[in-house]
């Protein structure tokens, strides 16, 4: 029952999902690394990106505008959230931070449910990438191939921002030791706000780019959030390369297992996570640091 075309097609699916997870997880992991806050509303940011893009697409009919509007809107939501609520929680226990971001995620999801209802919404792929592409031995949806490319570009952009710019250097220094950054005279709270915005934007961007692949529902972020956690645990919290590696591993595990039996996809994913926890408790590319 396993034929090669099917297998390769699943490999591609895994790559697309993995790239998506890598991008979302990068957002989660740089927020946690810098601010020390695990954002349980990160899945909701992914969902919001999809819906904001959907609205923009409905009004303009342009997929590019949808992507830009979706990402920027989520970045804005992230910044407002950080300014108004999250920053009051930096001095409080992790548990409180988890509670409040969990509450925020429910608020986001329910606002969308209130506005758009529970039925699913569709965003068609842009005409340039519609249809299927013959790959010689099989046919593959063009847009999914495009997703891999688009996300690779986004990840590269994030890489450039993190590793080649001044603000990126401050962020990476903040991941190492945010107190020290503060003492060096850098306004660390402004950095926190920017990081939260960028992290949320990564999830929002993924949300709208992924929208043509799946249909949008208010609860779409929940599953993604759980997968993102596994990615981060596998890759190592606070590590950008770890998020990318973990994302690709998780994407392939889910896809290839689904080929045999979709019901076991999560079991395999969990088994991989357990294995990493036993062999390398701090993740594949993580370092022993704050918990």
């Amino acid at each position, binding site marked *: 029952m396993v034929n090669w075309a099917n297998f390769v097609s699943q490999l591609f699916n895994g790559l697309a999902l993995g790239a998506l997870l890598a991008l979302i997880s990068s957002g989660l992991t740089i927020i*946690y690394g810098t601010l020390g806050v*695990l954002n349980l509303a990160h899945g909701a940011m992914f969902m919001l990106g999809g819906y904001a893009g959907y609205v923009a697409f409905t009004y303009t009919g342009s997929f590019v505008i949808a992507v830009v509007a979706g990402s920027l809107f989520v970045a804005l939501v992230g910044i407002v959230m950080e300014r108004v*609520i999250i920053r*009051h929680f930096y001095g*409080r226990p*992790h*548990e*409180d931070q*988890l*509670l*409040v971001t*969990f*509450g*925020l995620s*429910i*608020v986001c999801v*329910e*606002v969308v*449910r*209130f506005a758009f209802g*529970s039925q699913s919404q569709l965003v068609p792929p842009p005409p340039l990438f519609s249809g299927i592409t013959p790959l010689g031995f099989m046919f593959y949806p063009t847009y999914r191939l495009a997703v891999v490319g688009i996300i690779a570009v986004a990840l590269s952009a994030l890489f450039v921002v993190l590793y080649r710019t001044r603000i990126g250097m401050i962020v990476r220094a903040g991941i190492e030791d945010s107190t020290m950054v503060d003492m060096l005279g850098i306004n660390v709270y402004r950095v926190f706000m920017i990081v939260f915005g960028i992290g949320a934007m990564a999830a929002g961007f993924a949300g709208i780019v992924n929208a043509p692949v799946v249909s949008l529902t208010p609860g779409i972020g*929940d*599953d993604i*959030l*759980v997968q993102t*956690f*596994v990615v*981060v*645990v596998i890759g190592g*919290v606070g590590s950008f390369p770890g998020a990318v590696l973990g994302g690709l591993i998780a994407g392939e595990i889910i896809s290839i297992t689904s080929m045999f*039996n*979709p*019901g*076991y*996809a*999560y*079991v395999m*994913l*969990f088994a991989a*996570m*357990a294995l990493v*926890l*036993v062999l390398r*408790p701090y993740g594949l590319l993580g370092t022993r640091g704050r*918990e």
Partner: protein
Amino acid sequence: MIMQRRYAIEALTAAGLIAAPLVLPYLGFAPNTVNRILVWGLFGIGFDILFGYTGMLSFGQSAFYGTGGVVAAWLLTRAGFPNVFLALIIGMISAAVVGYLVGLIALRRTGIYFAMITVAIAEVFFFVEFNPLSDFTGGENGLPGVPTPSFNLGLTTLHFTTGWSLYQFLALCYFVGIVIALRIVRSPVGAILSAIRDNPLRAQAVGHNIHGYKLTAFVIAAAYAGFAGGLLGVLQAFMPPDAFTFETSGQLVMQTAIGGTGTLFGPLLGAAVWLFLQDFLQSALGLGAAWKLVLGTVFVLLVTFLRRGIIGGIRDLYVWATSRRNGHEATDAESLADFSDIPDSGGMPVTIAPHRRAGDRSSGPILQARGLTKRYGGLVANSDIDFTVNHGELRGVIGPNGAGKSTFFKMLTCEVTPTSGSILFEGRDITGMNVTDVCQLGLTKSYQVNQLFTHLTVRENLTVAVLADLRGRFKLDLFRNVASIPGLAAQVAQTMMLVRLTRRADTKVSDLAYGEKRRLEIGLALATSPSLLLLDEPLAGMSPQERVETVKLLKSLSQGRTMIIIDHDMDSLFELAERVTVLQEGRVLVEGTPDEIKANPAVQEAYLGGVIE
């Protein structure tokens, strides 16, 4: 406080449960709503022990709730099992076993990692239940036809069906659940769980196997979840598959946070608020599906402003109201006054006997370190240190900043593993052991930076330390009252007297003056009755007068005890110690009596900044 009257909480709970069917209908609660509140409340008792008492926030309790529920429902509907109550118990045990296995993985990490791992594991259960095991669990159809309990008492048969009739059964279950939980919370294990929440590092350092206790709390929470899950099936006559969803875990967390953590009753209150508002918003206000938006918003506001939930808020209000009448802040002057309480001339009024173990000798070396070296990458913190301390000695260790004193101490107490070299304690090689086992052997230290259980009182702090001494590293006496352990109260009282904190026994650590905290820090180490006590800068940050008093205190402690003290205050150290070891740049520079050290030109050069001849 009501806690002081024995069984008062139990009696009040029973009274409340009996009164509920008489009162609640007038407040607009339907019997079915009340029953659901009880199931959530019972589910939450275990979760509160895990989160409120031990400080571990799990977002994966649905896994155990679902497991217990499905096992019980399967037994009753598919396997033809006749006894409802027994099925519930089997469901509970299954959930506990699953909880143990999951705990082995999830507890490898703490904090946010733990939260993430529990979410992921619960999601696995959700998918497994829906797919590979759907023949067994009914998949998305659930398991319909779960019977209600009936008990054949010989003369008559008690049958609990629906509404207030089933309420009686659920209320009884809840009552038993609360009674058991109260016993656990008041047991030595309960005391240690609170200590783990406050400061896991210190709980470990005073000699408790915290991993074992965390796993215990996790299994207890899973067992409560499993039993409650079974009751859900009974209540609805149907085991719904959505018991396994992330939403279930989330609702439990939110209800507990709304009601208040660390009270056992918080989840019940939270569930009452939650379900009442749900009904109220949906039907009375006609909000329909938007009820959850309102509740979510309320929750965010509550977490932001009312940190400890409704019960916490009421308690804070009570404390605020009463402390305005008779409360006062501790001052340093007052803390010094404690010293005058006890005459400290003429030896010690009380002593804690250090450990006496087989092969104990009263003379000869108690600690021997050979060639102790620690490298951090290229940095050599300690290099080739030979160090011997004899029984009954009071040794001082000095050295300039960065000489490697703290690293040296950390290696001796096995917080840090040496790169090379060995440590013999009472003739036994302890190199590479962990800090808990070493403390159990009788070697512990007081920390340079206070490591206390901040939310507990002085008495509770010392109790935690003494428990490690009396009970060993791990013991599951879940149902024993702390107060009934022989020798515990006496040893706590003695330690309090030794460190002059008797008058502050029931004060929370966060309300102590700095000097008092420093003394409690020493007291925690002392309470484990060590045969060798290490003190890392006990005088740090003290005022001159406090130093004088603390030196006196240390002198009195050293009677019949072996101690090693690190400090910067050389005058005090020279006054205290019989022999002094000087460390410089990670090596032993010289060792000798205080007079020899003072006269040594190398020490003067290194430590005092050189002497002009």
